[in-house]
């Protein structure tokens, strides 16, 4: 492999941090949080793929495919929930949904 593993890992870390910041900061919109989660998952996938290339085995790539499948399922479910929530409360701000808080 031309790209060294370290570069892949640094990229993955940057990507993960971006996703995390997006999730934490953009809390007024649940869709943006979902996007952040997707970015973090992609970072994880990148590590898998990079590892697979580095050691010359296919396991990581298989795992990346499985994550893609899982992600698509998760996104479809999450988007359904978002639609449901929006219908109920007419907002997608996560802080508005605090019915489970202990008071």
């Amino acid at each position, binding site marked *: 492999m031309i790209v060294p593993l370290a570069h892949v890992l640094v990229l993955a870390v940057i990507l993960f941090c971006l996703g*995390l910041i997006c*999730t*934490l900061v953009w*809390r007024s919109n649940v869709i943006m949080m979902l996007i952040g989660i997707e970015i973090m998952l992609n970072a994880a996938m990148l590590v898998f793929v990079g590892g697979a290339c580095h050691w010359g085995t296919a396991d990581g790539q298989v795992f990346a495919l499985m994550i893609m499948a899982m992600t698509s399922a998760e996104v479809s479910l999450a988007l359904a929930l978002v639609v449901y929530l929006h219908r109920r409360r007419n907002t997608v701000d*996560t*802080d508005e*949904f*605090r*019915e*489970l*808080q*202990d008071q």
Partner: protein
Amino acid sequence: MKLYLELIILLPLLGGISNALLGGRLFSRRSSEFVACAVIWGSCAAALTAAYSYRSPEVVEIATWLSDFDFKAPLTLYLDPLSLSLCLMITFVCGLIHLYAVGYMRDDHCYVRFFALLNLFVAAMLTLVLAENLPLLYLGWEGVGFCSYALIGFWYSDPKNATAGRKAFIVTRIGDIGLGIAIVWMFELFGTESITRLNQMGNLLPVGIVTALGLLMLLAAMGKSAQVPLMVWLPDAMAGPTPVSAQIHAATMVTAGVYLLMRMFPLIGSSTTVSAAIAITGALTAFYGATCAVAQRDLKRILAFSTISQIGYMMLGVGSGAITAATFHLLVHAFFKALLFLGAGCVITTLHHEQDIFRMGGLRHKLPGTYWPFLAGALCLAGLPLTGGFFSKDGILSAVWRTGGMLYGGLYLVGLMTAFITAVYTMRMLLVVFGGPSTPLSHQAVDGADLTENKDKRMVSGVGPLPRIMEWPLIPLALLGLGGGLLNLPEYLGGGLLHSFLAPLTGHEPTLPHATELLLQGSAAIVALAGTATAWLRYGGQRRSLRLSEAQQPARGLQAFLREGWRVDQLYDLLFVRPYVRLATLLWQRVDEGCIDDNLDRTSTQLGRFGNMLGGLGQGRVSLSLTGMAIAAALMIAWLAWMTA
């Protein structure tokens, strides 16, 4: 003998307990009174039987009590001439006082408590007297203290009386510290608490330690026997019912201190410092009490100060090593002081709780049954020749003379001067209370002093009826007081009964030549007669009404100083009470509330605030939870990185 000794103590104890438990419920008033009197007279009978079968000093162990390693304090009683003579006196005088109390308390609803405590009082005193070891003596000592506290504050609904009770308790407690320390220390030194054995071991120790022990015991005796400087509780103790005063003064309480010193004298008497300290305390107290009594106008307070003074004489006797003379005076004093108190109680009851002597008068004709015994008691107290009080007081004074030296010579003069003052105040009391044509009942308040106990009864004028049971206990006491001299006649009249009876205990006390003794008695008689004459010149006949009108003016100068007991109360208030109160206030407001409480309050506020902050995190906001999760994950990763690095 064992049975008799047990009965002497157990009967009053049983009477007190049964009255406390059953009185008012199972017992009618009559049976309650009957039980209270019967147990004391039963105890008296037991004491008489014990005296009859007495041969030599005896130690009787009744039961084990405290026992731990070397420390042993069984319930052991010790009968020797000293404790036997005191037991006889206590049971007899207390029996009469109990009978009198039946009459005195006839209108009181709390008679059950009264009689139960009165019985317990006697039981505690008998325990004290008969105890063979110091812890048992201490039990009786504290029992006496407790009962006196409860009885002085008997009418506790009036805060003044309750305060008097507390004062008596606290002041005597100061002295008890000395006794407590002495008891523990003696066990440490000798390994035993038995009085008989301790008394044989006095010469084993250096004089310094014996002196310290003696001074500790003197402190205890000062508290209990109301000696200078711990005498302030006794005048206030007059707040109690009169039979209680009589019992405290005559038989059960104040003599305990003198008894302790007499009991331990073989041990502590080997130190001349202790003897001198005892003698000086006694002489000082005798003088103090007598001077205060001259200026009092409350009948019971006169008697209270006279007790302080007479107990001072006893201490003086003990300090001169004259145990016989001190015992003799103790016994005779018990008779005439009980008599005087009971007589005063009769007067006060008759006049509807009037205690100011300047509002009395003419009682000689109205109360002959009280007057004649009271006269006998007054003659004894004044020490007029041939009464019991004369012989006993002279015994002490001649013992002081016999000891000799500068110090004791001075003390003899103080004693003689006190005898003069004693005669003056006794006769003043007698002439003002009983003399004069009639009872002045213009009950307007004089110099603002409120001396009447019962204000609503002030309006009632005239002389009330007196139950006969209150008058006849005075007669045997009067006979004993007058004839008390027969107990211990001087050497030139054939020697004393008490002297030979106490001889095994005291050893051979040296006696004076007959001529010297006669000379001393002559001077004592002259002094007493001079005092009587002085009182007569001031208060006799027509001059009495003059003094009465003088008494309308408020006291000033020396008279006020003496009436307030040398202002010792104010002095102690300034020296001890106020600094203590100030310290307590400081500790309470600054240290406790200001420092400790405040800090705790502030800590709790901070903790509450912190909790609220933590609570704010758990408000179910998704973003916050996510942030928390991220931070936790970061921390975990950092930790793992740290560990693997």
